[in-house]
């Protein structure tokens, strides 16, 4: 993929296919907007996410009665600006999503290729061992497993990432294993073998690039799943801890004000939903554009 800029045809073809899907383009635009907000959080956010305005505790948002332009989306129970917290929350959620995706992508590729890379009894033993462990992880309901991991390691941001990575790892491993297995029987791989390509080079240089399309789609959709899962952990008090401006944690804090200050509940959830929907829409578009065979409909 490194030489794409020089040879623009594949990229153009991809973009032409991607552009056909209106939902995907909108999704991508929103995702890019959220990414920009997250990157520029310190510049864009009107206040620090943890600055407490004691004179304006639970101030109403600008459209509600008693709202002012000082706090566009109101303030929370400690007088912190909601808008600033939501913007900084984007940073945390995207960071979790990307970290989970990155780590599970790399480990998933390594484990998936390890399943098929070795020959003989040892190779089979490795394959069975890895596949069994992945089956086990898949058997435990995602959130229950994440809860167990966090309960053992202790609730914080890093352990949230560890827990969610463990939960989503099997998808990558299985995908890599299946597509590598399919590729290994093809003529070009046999040709490479005959030409004397070593096992490591065969796996990473010959086989892996041809398994990438489904993997990229999985990675894109995996980001949104990771964000949802991490927010759920945060909501249960098992994720990022206060005062971190994490969307799920903010929701948990706001629960008791559901009657008096509904926007404290509505806004963080809306942020999660919009982010996840956008990523999923863009991911679906990516799927259609990269591989027409995988189209959902």
């Amino acid at each position, binding site marked *: 993929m490194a030489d794409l800029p020089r040879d623009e045809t594949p990229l153009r073809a991809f973009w032409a296919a991607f552009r056909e899907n209106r*939902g995907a383009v909108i999704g991508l635009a929103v995702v890019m907007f959220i990414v920009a907000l997250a990157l520029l959080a310190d510049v864009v956010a009107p206040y620090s996410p943890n600055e407490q305005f004691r004179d304006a505790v639970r101030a109403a948002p600008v459209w509600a009665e008693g709202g002012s332009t000082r706090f566009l989306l109101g303030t929370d129970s400690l007088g912190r600006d909601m808008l600033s917290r939501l913007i900084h929350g984007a940073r945390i959620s995207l960071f979790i999503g990307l970290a989970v995706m990155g780590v599970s992508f790399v480990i998933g590729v390594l484990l998936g290729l390890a399943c098929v890379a070795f020959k003989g009894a040892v190779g089979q033993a490795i394959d069975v061992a890895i596949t*069994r*462990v992945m*089956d*086990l992880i898949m*058997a*435990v*309901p*995602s*959130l*229950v*497993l994440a*809860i*167990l*991991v966090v*309960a*053992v*390691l*202790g609730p914080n941001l890093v352990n949230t990432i560890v827990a969610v990575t463990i939960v989503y790892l099997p998808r990558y491993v299985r995908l890599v294993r299946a597509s590598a297995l399919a590729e290994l029987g093809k003529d070009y791989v046999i040709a490479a073998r005959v030409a004397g390509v070593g096992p490591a080079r065969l796996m990473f240089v010959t086989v892996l690039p041809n398994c990438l399309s489904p993997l990229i789609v999985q990675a894109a959709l995996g980001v*949104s799943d990771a964000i*949802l899962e991490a*927010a*759920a952990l945060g*909501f*249960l*008090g*098992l994720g990022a801890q206060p005062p971190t401006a994490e969307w*799920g944690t903010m*929701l948990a804090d706001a*629960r008791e004000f*559901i*009657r008096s200050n*509904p926007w404290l*509940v*509505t806004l*963080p*959830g809306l942020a*999660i*939903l919009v982010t*996840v*929907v956008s990523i*999923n*829409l863009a991911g*679906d578009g990516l799927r259609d554009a990269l591989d027409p065979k995988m189209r*959902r*409909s």
Partner: protein
Amino acid sequence: MLRFLLRRLALTIPTFIALMFVTFVAIRLVPGDPVEVRVGERGISPERLAMFRHELGLDQPVWKQFIDYGGQLLHGDFGTSLATNQKVLTEFAALFPATIELSLAGMLFAVLLGIPAGTLAAAKRGTWFDQTLMGLSVTGYSMPIFWWGLLLIMFVAERWGLTPVSGRIDLIKFYFEPVTGFMVIDAWLSGQAGAVKDALHHLVLPAIVLGTIPLAVIARMTRSAMLEVLGEDYVRTARAKGLPPRRVIGLHALRNALIPVVTIIGLQVGTLMAGAVLTETIFSWPGVGKWLIESIGRRDYPALQGGVMLISSIVIGVNLLVDLLYGLINPRIRHG
């Protein structure tokens, strides 16, 4: 068929052993001594501490503890809760019907709405109806259900007063001993006027929340399965011989499209269990999901360990059952 069944059963055994191993190791990695948690902060004499350790088997070598743990599980002993001193299995069994009731209601909601919606979307492919429905499906699939639950409470329960906010039944108006553990059935058995209606009222919102993600998945799956089937020759034949479209879609196509949909429904059990943890927490629904979260709060690790073990075993069991059923319906799987 018997060979398929045995092979499939044999495959689950290593999974169970691995599951045992994971829960066993996980609990030992927890910071803090389980005995000290039980004893509390006041502390006790070293003799009593040693006695407790012996009672819990903690003075044995680790490998022996693991074997013992496996033996206990085989005897149906999933440990003893530190908080209540009750058998984990007893507590779990008392709460599990509530979770099943909620899950069944959620699944019913998802199936009853999802299959017709998906079928209709496929029949009207490309229309605004189809597009709206698929948009809603992506939204449903992306829904943070803990927020969705709070929203529904905020509007349906609080603002419009249509349903209760939490719990399974109005405990002030109705009281009866649990017989089956299923509130709706117990309410019916109790014969108290209005009890069933009240139980159903309590069930509506949690069921919708829990059923939302399965609904999105089922609608989408039904649509794509229908689209595939609608291109088949036998559907064209049915159309060609002049059957009304409703009959072609509802009978000839839907029946065949349902096979993958049924599989998906079976595979949603894991999703339901994960969702039950959140849904039960939001609606104070006294099931195993809420209990699991509370166990963490109480640092009741044996309950957590036993609970995870039990929930996972049930999911593995149901998935196995779905596989077997699928093998029964579709011989190609059996001999694959």
